[in-house]
């Protein structure tokens, strides 16, 4: 089933038989480990088979646990998770708060640098997914996480990039889940992908909730 998410080229999501278009920001809301892995492994495996660059941030599992399941599901991709030309696996600290503080502006810069680097040998599709459970810890600046999520809606569109932010609905509060829904234009729940009716354009969300982060990234 195709979900038209932009005017960019199509991609196979690797989740069920869904296809969508590049340049999309999705939240994956799950309750169980199996549900989470189904999203991660299918999504990254499909990208790996298609020659995309995979960006993954494991939190609820170790990279080793992921690799074991990944190679079992995609034996033809053996060792790819350890190869920088296929995968970039970072822990939450490396990716989100390398200096000890989470900052949406630093994130914009970090992602932009990563993107430029990924395109230096020609256009390359990028698939990113991260388990967001790290944000349950009292990390300085974590209160701005939703501002970062809102700003990703400036960063991703127009690029050969797709992100799935994974939130465990049993762990996050209703208030956070509502904000997750307000900052992601598409949503996965129970293996079903839909346009998210709660989504609010970043201009509006930021002005109402985090006006200090309003300037779109260049």
């Amino acid at each position, binding site marked *: 089933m195709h979900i038209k998410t932009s005017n960019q080229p199509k991609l196979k999501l690797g989740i069920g038989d869904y296809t969508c278009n590049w340049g999309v920001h999705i939240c994956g*809301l*799950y*309750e169980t480990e199996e549900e989470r892995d189904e999203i991660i492994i299918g999504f990254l495996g499909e990208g790996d088979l298609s020659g995309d660059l995979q960006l993954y941030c494991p939190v609820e599992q170790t990279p080793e646990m992921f690799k074991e399941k990944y190679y079992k599901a995609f034996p033809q991709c053996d060792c790819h998770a350890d190869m920088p030309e296929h995968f970039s696996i970072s822990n939450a600290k490396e990716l989100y708060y390398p200096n000890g503080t989470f900052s949406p502006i630093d994130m914009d810069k970090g992602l932009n640098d990563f993107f430029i680097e990924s395109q230096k040998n020609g256009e390359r599709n990028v698939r990113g997914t991260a388990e967001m459970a790290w944000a349950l810890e009292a990390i300085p600046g974590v209160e701005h996480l939703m501002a970062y999520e809102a700003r990703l809606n400036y960063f991703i569109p127009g690029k050969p990039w797709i992100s799935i932010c994974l939130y465990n*609905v*049993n762990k996050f*509060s*209703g*208030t956070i*889940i*509502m904000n997750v*829904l307000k900052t992601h234009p598409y*949503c996965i*729940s*129970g*293996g*079903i992908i*839909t346009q998210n*009716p*709660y989504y609010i354009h970043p201009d509006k969300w930021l002005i109402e909730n985090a006006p200090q982060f309003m300037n779109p990234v260049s």
Partner: protein
Amino acid sequence: MKNHIHHELFLLSTNLSQFKSKTLIIKVFVESINSIFPGHQFCWKKESDKNAEENIKVCTRSKTYGYLSFIEKSNLTNETFSLLQNAVQLLAVLIENVEQEELLNDQKEHLDILVEEKTRDLIKSQQQVKETSKMAKVGGWQIDLHGNTLSWTSETYRIYELSEDKIPNVADAINYYHPDDQEIVSEYVRQAIENGTSFDFQARLISAKNNLKWVRAYGKVNIVNGETTGVHGMIQDITERIAREKKLQKSLHELNQAQKVAKVGSWF
């Protein structure tokens, strides 16, 4: 005000119906209700909360899922309270739908596994039958009197030395028998079709590659509601066995002759 709440609740139910997770539905419902009816501190409880001013049971006819507990009930008019109750009822139905979908998916998954296992077993036993048939040189055949067709298994084709793309018919199948045996074979088949008589005979067959073979054919009629619908059976290549028997007979004969010439006997 009432219309506004009505509209918000309608939107809420439409939006929630696309989620396939119970926890997600409950969390979004509670957050949205708190935003539609501010100041009541709505929360989800598994059991009725004695400290809350009001507990609305979230249930369908068959199951209670939990309670929506809140305070300051007196601030709600009867009309809005009634709307809230309707919304809670809708929530229960949405949860029930998700549970039923989950159950259906589980059953489908279970069924898929079962079908896969049974298919694997069937393929395995078919392979075993095929291998056994090949080793014993036993083929199967079936005459369908309704469609007037004859079908063979792979091993039968091998006995006749014909390629499997050739579609056989009864007359052709009989014509492959030795000219001296064709009449008796035809008679067995005719008796089976007309009188329902089973048969079991040995005869000579000249294969498509002109090899003379001895075969044993066994046939039995299929009767449905008293009517003969067809004949099915087996054919076995017994050429080697016949050759062995002949050789043995020849050896015995020669031994017999030798004993006669030497005028000696044997005992066991």
